């Protein structure tokens, strides 16, 4: 008999997402992935000054403000017709801001969102030694404060006690590393969080020798952590859970908008030189150059009215919570009408087939070290491995870029807001392809649309009934215990889903707050 499993909510942070999987005969026969919260931030932007887009879109999410900031400023640069006039200092500092965000996001994802699915942190409860970090973690567990961070589903834990303790310790080191990455961003982002420095035309912060030095020592600590802790830990998980190279395969189609501009003189974001290459790879082999006109969104199974297969620049946000075929607040973005996965794995596969030499060398070494084939990367472990490689390449590249800055030279260019214009800002954030589109009329925003990475990966079925990437990745997965479906949780988590909803209300359940009211 078929059993329906509901996992809700699925992300440890930032997200309202529900997965329904139908298991029959021990494997998943159908999966539905639903965004459960209406996001209509586009509606708020209508009629505003175009420059507000940079400030407002950063507020849609607590995890990825930096990448919304990047996409919205690229969008405004293009609408203001200055995309090819950003001074090198401005271009490099924007890369530095985005790159710092990549590092903190990936480290957070692996250590604080993923690792506890594989590492038995409870082993620390039995710790009797004198290591201050493990003692601190032991106290945290004994006070019951770990509860929100451990999986709701019991994992199958395979490391021995001392390895579990060692890896749990890295959970703490990683918190400190995130802090450093955050400070790096703060050096050049001006006000933090929700940085104010990245603006149309460039950036408002000037590079100084002091800031460059302050950035470099932090970056070097992070590079040491990535090389000697993060990457070895991902390898350790891969060796202990090798079948996860065969579990969680997505559609095998990968899309990347590219990231980190290396040349500011080409105003076409689809072709300008970036560290990660723009493009689409079909069936894990056929590379095609990126054509943004082939991006469409469908709403067949989403709670929106409107046509299917519409380009985002022409899209409207028309919520309809009573739509009969609907099961998600997420739309279905498609490329050439097909289902594409986005994210670090997509970035690496696309750049690999585009012939990016650093990516090619690094990915070939990775496959050899892990003893797998390229196609095995289309999996849970492939996504984690790509995220670690991503961190290393971005960190190593930042060490070079920071030395290309020229203190005293311009960081920003002047512009005028046109009466009427269209713009597009496309860039890969830590979680993958992010697109912003704007239409300006009478110097005001007439239309604004965002297509965020988790809408690609977490999309529902489209009008051709093609399931979204996460839905496909769950299909045919063997589930040992339908009451404890940790396999499915591990698959979904490997995508690093993040739905911009961001409600941060403090909710007090146990303590009695009535006594603490002051009015």
């Amino acid at each position, binding site marked *: 008999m078929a059993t329906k499993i509901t996992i809700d*909510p699925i*992300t*440890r*942070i*930032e*997200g*309202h997402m529900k997965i329904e999987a139908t298991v029959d005969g021990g494997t998943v026969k159908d999966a539905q992935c639903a965004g459960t919260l*209406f*996001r*209509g*931030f586009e*509606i*708020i932007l209508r009629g505003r000054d175009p420059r507000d887009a940079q400030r*407002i879109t*950063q*507020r*849609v*999410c*607590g*995890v990825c*403000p930096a990448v919304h900031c990047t996409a919205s400023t690229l969008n405004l640069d293009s609408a203001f017709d200055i995309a090819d006039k950003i001074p090198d200092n401005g271009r490099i500092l924007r890369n530095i801001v985005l790159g710092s965000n990549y590092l*903190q996001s990936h480290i957070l994802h692996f250590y*604080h969102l993923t690792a506890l699915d594989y590492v038995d942190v409870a082993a620390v409860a039995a710790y009797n030694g004198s290591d201050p970090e493990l003692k*601190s*973690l032991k106290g*945290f567990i004994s*006070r*019951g*404060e770990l*509860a*929100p*961070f451990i999986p*709701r589903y019991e994992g199958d834990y395979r490391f021995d006690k001392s390895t579990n303790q060692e890896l749990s310790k890295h959970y*703490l080191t990683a*918190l*400190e590393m*995130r*802090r450093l990455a*955050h400070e790096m961003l703060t050096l050049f982002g001006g*006000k*933090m*969080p*929700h940085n104010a420095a990245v603006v149309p035309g460039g950036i408002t912060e000037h590079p100084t020798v002091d800031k460059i030095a302050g950035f470099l020592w932090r970056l070097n600590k992070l590079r040491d952590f990535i090389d000697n802790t993060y990457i070895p830990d991902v390898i350790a998980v891969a060796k202990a859970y090798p079948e996860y190279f065969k579990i969680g395969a997505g559609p095998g189609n990968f899309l990347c908008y590219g990231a980190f501009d290396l040349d500011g003189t080409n105003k076409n974001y689809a072709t300008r030189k970036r560290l990660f290459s723009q493009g689409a790879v079909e069936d894990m082999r056929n590379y095609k150059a990126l054509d943004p006109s082939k991006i469409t969104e469908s709403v067949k199974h989403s709670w929106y009215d409107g046509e299917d297969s519409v380009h985002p620049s022409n899209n409207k946000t028309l919520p309809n919570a009573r739509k009969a075929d609907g099961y998600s607040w997420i739309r279905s973005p498609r490329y050439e009408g097909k289902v594409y996965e986005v994210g670090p794995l997509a970035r690496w596969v696309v750049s690999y087939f585009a012939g990016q030499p650093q990516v090619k060398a690094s990915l070939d070494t990775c496959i050899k070290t892990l003893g797998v084939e390229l196609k095995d990367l289309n999996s849970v472990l492939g996504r984690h491995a790509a995220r670690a490689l991503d961190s290393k390449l971005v960190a190593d590249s930042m060490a070079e870029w920071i030395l290309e800055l020229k203190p005293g030279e311009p960081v920003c260019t002047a512009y005028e807001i046109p009466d009427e214009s269209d713009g597009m800002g496309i860039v890969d954030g830590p979680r993958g392809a992010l697109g912003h589109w704007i239409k300006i009329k009478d110097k005001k925003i007439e239309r604004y649309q965002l297509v965020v990475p988790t809408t690609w990966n977490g999309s529902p079925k489209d009008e051709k009934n093609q399931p979204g990437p996460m839905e496909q990745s769950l299909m045919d997965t063997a589930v040992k215990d339908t009451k404890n479906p940790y396999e499915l949780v591990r698959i979904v988590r490997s995508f690093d889903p993040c739905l911009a909803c*961001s*409600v*941060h*209300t*403090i*909710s*007090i*359940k*146990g*303590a009695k*707050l*009535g006594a*603490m*009211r*002051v*009015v």
Partner: protein
Amino acid sequence: MCKKKIAVIGVGNILMGDEGVGVEVVRRLERLKYLGEVELIDAGTAFLDVVTGLRSFEKVIIIDAVHGGEAAGTVYRFKLDDVEGDKPAVSLHDFGVIESIRLERLIAELPKEIVFYGVEPQIIKLAMQLSPTVEGKVDYVVQKIIDELIASGVQVQR
């Protein structure tokens, strides 16, 4: 490490109605002048990014929308100790403010005093303004925080 005296941190999403009350309080506090070491921080939706900075302060005041079970507009004042042992909500969708502070305590010494001001929200949905009920309490919370700053030896000029 030389610690600054006080941080006042507003948390919340200004795009989601009453969720943004903490940020609104900080914005109003920004209009005043202070003699003494006070830092006003609009943490917005990224409290997890701000929490690692807590260690630089002796005292921290955090303002946020709080679901405490009383009528909308109710203002709460409590300390971290008051909610010690509180089991966070069953859902795992968020690193909440309190959970983030507990995480930070794993790697650093927390400020001596962490005070929360909470306002019970009425409406949390897509909107860039507060509900009239919560809006009506903003100046009251601002005044309470000014009193708190004065009591800590800060001079506040209107």
